[in-house]
């Protein structure tokens, strides 16, 4: 991996890069590709949550350049991006030719070739940004978790775990409209020190069909789809349910959400300690690097040992009959 020089614009006192906060990171974005910078800054807006007291400053330098390497995916294999990591340095390449390189202590150099900024290319830039954030959050002592989190009226934090499209957002919406609080429906950070979870986003990704259960969402079908790959719309939580968003929670319960057509409305059962651990591990990305993987698994196993778990099976009429919030609260107290 070749050495990467720090960007000269990082030291400019004025007229330099744009600054955005993203959880415990302050991200400086600059370079000579304004179109790609707009995409990155737009994507960072989605992670605009609550301010963190400690900030780690990082730099993202976006350059007009053609891909000069092809990563092999030895660290991470994503749908459109391959990532390698060696001696603490990281580099990734995507199908559209967007790439990123990073050496410890240096800026993240994003190379964007002369390509049409269509949906896949924008998605590739967002993928690269997701890598930058995830790696830097880890450096700052946080692990990213793809899960929802709600807080019961009695103050118990509950992680909602499912794959993409598995029902996290709809369940979160159902609980929030019943008076529960939320940290978000799919983007969380877990502290490696306290194992608290923190909110990373103020928006939900909701399918327009959820409006059939929740009348306050009747207008979301008019919103644009947020990606070509999904019909979901991005909805700012507080615009629909004011006062429902909270910054952090100490999870007491892990809920594994399973869609089940054989269930009439919904059904609960307790999970074993081992099932809780496996449920949480399925919500995090574990890269193929021994030290990074060890740190991620240590965080997750520590979190698992502090929580109990339930499996929540949701049938097609889950939100039409018995009050799911009331049932969950009764089960957990």
């Amino acid at each position, binding site marked *: 991996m070749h050495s990467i020089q720090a960007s000269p614009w990082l030291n400019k006192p004025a007229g330099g890069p744009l600054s955005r906060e993203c959880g415990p990171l302050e991200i400086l974005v600059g370079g000579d590709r304004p179109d790609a910078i707009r995409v990155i800054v737009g994507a960072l807006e989605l992670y605009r949550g609550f301010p963190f007291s400690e900030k780690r400053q990082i730099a993202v330098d976006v350059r007009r350049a053609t891909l000069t390497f092809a990563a092999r995916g030895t660290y*991470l*294999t*994503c*749908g*459109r*991006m391959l*990532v390698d990591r060696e001696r603490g340095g990281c580099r990734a390449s995507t199908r559209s030719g967007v790439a990123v390189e990073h050496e410890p202590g240096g800026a993240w150099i994003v190379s964007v070739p002369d390509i049409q900024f269509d949906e*896949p290319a924008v998605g590739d830039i*967002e*993928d690269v940004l*997701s*890598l930058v*954030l*995830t*790696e830097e959050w880890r450096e700052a002592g946080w692990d*990213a978790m*793809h899960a929802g989190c709600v807080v019961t009226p009695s103050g118990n934090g509950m992680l909602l775990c499912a*794959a*993409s*499209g598995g029902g996290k957002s709809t369940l979160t919406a159902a609980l929030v409209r019943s008076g529960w609080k939320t940290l978000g429906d*799919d*983007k969380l950070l877990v502290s490696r020190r306290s194992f608290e979870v923190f909110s990373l986003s103020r928006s939900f990704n909701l399918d327009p069909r959820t409006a059939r259960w929740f009348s306050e969402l009747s207008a979301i079908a008019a919103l644009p789809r947020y990606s070509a*790959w*999904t019909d979901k719309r991005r909805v700012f939580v507080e615009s629909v349910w004011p006062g429902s968003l909270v910054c952090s929670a100490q999870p007491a319960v892990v809920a594994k959400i399973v869609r089940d057509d054989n269930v009439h409305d919904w059904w609960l059962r307790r999970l074993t*300690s*081992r099932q809780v*651990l*496996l449920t949480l*591990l*399925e*919500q*995090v*990305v*574990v890269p*193929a*690097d*021994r030290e990074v*993987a*060890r740190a991620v*698994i*240590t965080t997750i*196993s520590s979190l*698992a*040992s502090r929580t109990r778990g339930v499996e929540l099976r949701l049938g097609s009429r889950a939100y039409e009959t018995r009050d799911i919030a009331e049932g969950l609260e009764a089960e957990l107290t």
Partner: protein
Amino acid sequence: MQLNPTISTRAGMLRSSVVPTVYGDGAILLDLTTKYFYHLNETGWAIVQLMESGAAAPEAIVKRCAQWGATSNDAADIWRFLDDLHAFGLVEEAQPASLPDIDAPTRWISPCIERQAEPLHRLVTSAFDPSIPLAE
């Protein structure tokens, strides 16, 4: 205790691609190559610790297990456990080294390893989202 001759020459060391993490009384192992998780009970974890920093000869492992309370009746279970480690590809053969000093299990129970039914996804949506990518 007598050793099973099929494994008596196979000193094993935990592969560098296997990441152990203490969990509950035992531990979990993640094989970064296959993305499979394994659960070890307390005794299984104690034996694996003997193979973490260097290769452990089965004879030496069995002798150490005897110090932890194993009897000749437990020998078959120890052999089966060591065979499982090899069969799952979690250990590799190497020249045996002296065994490290580790804490003895709180009580002797047969060592046990269980593989998770499904591995974690090798192909993920993004660095943040471990789901399988949606079809384009």
